[in-house]
């Protein structure tokens, strides 16, 4: 892999049936590239959590995954309401999900913490009323 490979996905909002399709496709793509199961698992989980967050909170968005020789970058962009208090949102167990979302098994307040846990770096750029961009990196070397 001398050049970066880029995968782009649109994520539907409020569609829990199709949620996870982008992450599942990324998993397939990374497997085809011969990456280790442990790396694939970390990228897939981090991306799925981000995907679910976009479905729950932001009426969807876009996901871009860039694979280079040295790292994998995941960039999740939405035009949702933004995150008022990032520090609070990063705490395990903090959630603003509704009861109906919780009944589906989501809303444990582990989404953002899991994204941080499974990646080597994570940056949240959020503006109230405009949207959120989350950039995560998983190192391959």
């Amino acid at each position, binding site marked *: 892999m001398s050049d970066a490979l880029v995968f782009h996905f649109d994520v539907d909002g409020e569609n*829990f*049936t199709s*949620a*996870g399709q982008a*992450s*599942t496709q990324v*998993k397939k793509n990374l497997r085809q590239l011969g990456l280790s*199961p*442990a790396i694939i*698992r970390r990228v*897939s*989980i981090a991306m*799925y*959590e981000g995907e*679910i967050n976009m479905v729950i909170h932001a009426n969807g968005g876009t996901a871009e995954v860039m694979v280079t020789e040295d790292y994998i970058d995941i960039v999740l962009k939405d035009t949702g309401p933004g995150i008022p208090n990032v520090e609070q949102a990063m705490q395990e167990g903090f959630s603003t999900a509704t009861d109906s979302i919780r009944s*589906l*098994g*989501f*809303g*444990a*307040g*582990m*989404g953002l*913490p*899991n994204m941080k*846990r499974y990646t080597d770096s994570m940056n949240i750029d959020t503006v109230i009323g405009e949207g959120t961009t989350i950039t995560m990196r998983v190192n391959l070397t």
Partner: protein
Amino acid sequence: MKVKDLLTHGFEAVTLPDGDRDIDGVYIGDLLSWVMGRAQMDNAWITIMNNVNVIAVATLADTSCVILAEGVALSDDLVKTATDKDVNILCSQEPIYETAVRLAGLLS
């Protein structure tokens, strides 16, 4: 122990596209992000959740199988989805605790 070996020990197959997969440890939970954060690759995952997102989590967290406890069933369309995605799903008629105890005995 392989996933298919559970069938002779009181577990029923709902889907078994990859029965030769090895089980390494067990995780129990119904909150999906909690499971994503804590379950290990190749774990057998015991839950009572039976919506489509369980299949996505099992795929991405790379668990060896999902075990639906308490006799929880899976709808026909989800059986097809799980099969298409190579997700093993078993069913136990016993409550979660008894299901876990049974598994612990088999895996020890």
